[in-house]
């Protein structure tokens, strides 16, 4: 059984959860809509599980664990943000209604540059053309951490940095805009630590220490930023970590069979593109069609559009980056 099988399965699952959480229900929630079967799913699954935001954060956490476990190249990881930011800027300029933070969009050269370099995510109150780009930022940290041959130093250094930022935030420095990235970052490190343990490149005690450190950091961020508490992210992180471990430990023939299917591989290969393009292509299509056709039909059109855009971007960039 290759190690690709669980990662492929998990990335495909993450793609479904992210698309559902940030495109399907994200769009409906932004318009105050709560139709059945989504309301029923929330009542019967989300609420009993303690999962907020319709599985979206859970999908992100699974994705980040996988990235930490099997980090890709730096350029290939960054490309989705670069392309999606330029697409978002273009969409705003031609008057399309896409998902940005804050919703009243403004596009300037400095603004686009800030989004392309993640500076807009690091500074408070800047316009975010691709609000979920910070996830790719966390993935880039995974790429950097993977360079460390010792295995323990880079994760420990990042954990210390997270801790210091928590201390600063607790002492009154306004870092609320960094709360989510800081909370999700330890999961990237955890994936990295599990990989090092799997490769026997890290002693078990060091892995246990670092793994515990990651969970402590996650809990510390949750406690430091009061705005996060209502989302119960540590609960979602618990599920993500357990699902990740189970997938790694018990993937068998059935898992290999599912992972080998075209649709699974398609989703797994394009998850980052689906993540960043949902808010750009998906919201643009949905907002454009909202007044002309029923929302369910518009949703299907938007999903197809996002899928096609993600596929096109994946194919083009794969060729360009030679992967």
């Amino acid at each position, binding site marked *: 059984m290759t190690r690709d099988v669980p990662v492929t399965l998990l990335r495909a699952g993450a793609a479904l959860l992210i698309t559902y959480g940030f495109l399907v229900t994200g769009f409906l929630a932004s318009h105050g809509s709560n139709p059945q079967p989504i309301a029923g799913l929330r*009542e*019967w*699954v989300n609420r*009993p*599980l*303690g999962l907020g935001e319709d599985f979206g954060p859970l999908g992100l956490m699974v994705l980040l664990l996988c990235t930490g476990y099997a980090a890709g190249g730096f350029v290939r990881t960054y490309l989705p943000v670069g392309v999606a930011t330029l697409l978002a800027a273009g969409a705003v300029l031609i008057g399309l209604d896409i998902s940005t933070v804050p919703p009243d969009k403004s596009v300037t050269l400095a603004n686009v540059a800030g989004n392309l370099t993640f500076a807009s995510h690091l500074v408070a109150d800047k316009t975010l053309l691709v609000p979920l780009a910070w996830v790719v930022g966390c993935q880039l940290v995974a790429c950097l951490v993977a360079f460390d041959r010792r295995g323990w130093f880079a994760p420990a250094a990042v954990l210390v940095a997270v801790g210091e930022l928590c201390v600063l935030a607790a002492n009154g420095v306004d870092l609320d805009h960094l709360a989510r990235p800081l909370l999700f970052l330890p999961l990237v490190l955890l994936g990295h630590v599990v990989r090092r343990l799997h490769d026997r490149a890290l002693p078990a005690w060091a892995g246990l220490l670092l793994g515990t450190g990651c969970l*402590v950091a*996650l*809990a*510390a961020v*949750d*406690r430091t930023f009061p705005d996060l508490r209502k989302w*119960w992210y*540590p*609960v979602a992180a*618990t*599920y993500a970590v*357990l*699902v990740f*471990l*189970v997938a790694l*430990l*018990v993937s*068998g023939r*059935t*898992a290999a069979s599912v992972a080998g299917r075209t649709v699974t591989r398609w989703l797994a290969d394009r998850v980052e593109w689906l993540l960043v393009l949902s808010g750009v292509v998906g919201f643009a299509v949905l907002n454009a069609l909202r007044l002309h056709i029923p929302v369910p039909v518009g949703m299907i059109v938007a999903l197809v559009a996002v899928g096609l855009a993600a596929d096109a971007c994946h194919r083009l960039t794969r060729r360009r980056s030679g992967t």
Partner: protein
Amino acid sequence: MRYLHGLDVLRVLASVAVVYTHTRDWFATGGQTWRLDHALTATVLAPFRLDAYLVPIAITTFFLISGLVVTFAAQRESPGRFLARRFTRVLPALWVVLAIVWVVARTGTPIGVTGPVDGATLLTNLTLTNFFFSGNPGLDLVTWTLVVQVCFYLFVAATIPLLRRWPWLPAAISVALVSVLLSVVRTESPVALHTLRVAVTLLPILFIGQLIALVRLRRLHPLAGLAYGAAHWLLLVRGDLTSDFTPPVPGYPQTVVCIALLTIACCRMSGRWVAAGWLSAAANRTYAVFLVHVPVLYVTPPLLSTTAGTTLAFFVAMVGTAVAADLLYRFVEMPAVRWWRTWENRGQNTAERAPDDLAGRVEATR
């Protein structure tokens, strides 16, 4: 099937969780708290939303492991032998603890028994029927979980022939049965219906353990196991949503998912420290700890001076629990199992004897 040492880890952790929670509750009812609890709640339990969920975690763990291990045993035992072995493991220790608590309560010593302590009380507790009739106080309040266990044993015994031939069928029957019973048992008064509702609501946890075992034994396709598991989980949610009283604390649906995943992962655990002798010894005594910790908790701290402090009282109660559990295991639980195995094998030559399976360690979770 090799011995699953990882489950020992879970059983010990669950045992610690249940003892810790009852200790915390005991101090809380006396208006006392201790620093260890404050620190643990602030740093671990509150961020992970576990502070109210320790009891569901412990109970879910015991039920899941029980469902899993009992299914392994059901693969090679006849229905009669299956029930006899389960009851031999459960009842003697239970009866001894209940008898001792009854005697202590009769002397007027506070031991957590609220109500008349007469012969009927003892008799109903020994047969677990105190949970079906009002006016019969429980001698050991944790024994309600055994009602759920017994229901599961009876179902497994009744479906052993099906389990061996069509493993998917008992799973399908259990989904239908729980669903129907949840529809039928809707009121929780009188007390018998409440007990039945509790059993029906929590039975899916044991069935999920059974599904994990069947998938692990390759008797059920993993995707079928996943589908049946999801159905049972939704039944648990349904039981929770359709009752104001059962389960009495929130968190079961969450903890079931977490513990099921953890159990699956733990089944793959191996290594020197997982198979350590002390861990195995502690795991074997979890049932005894489960039975004795509440009575010990009531008896030991009041023996100390009120100025001794909660931390010392806590450690004294823990030492008392460990000693009482060890005595119960060595002199009641194990002798009863050994005696029954000897009786089972009477008149048979060595080749025909029932496998001793490490003196019942595989079924050690009842």
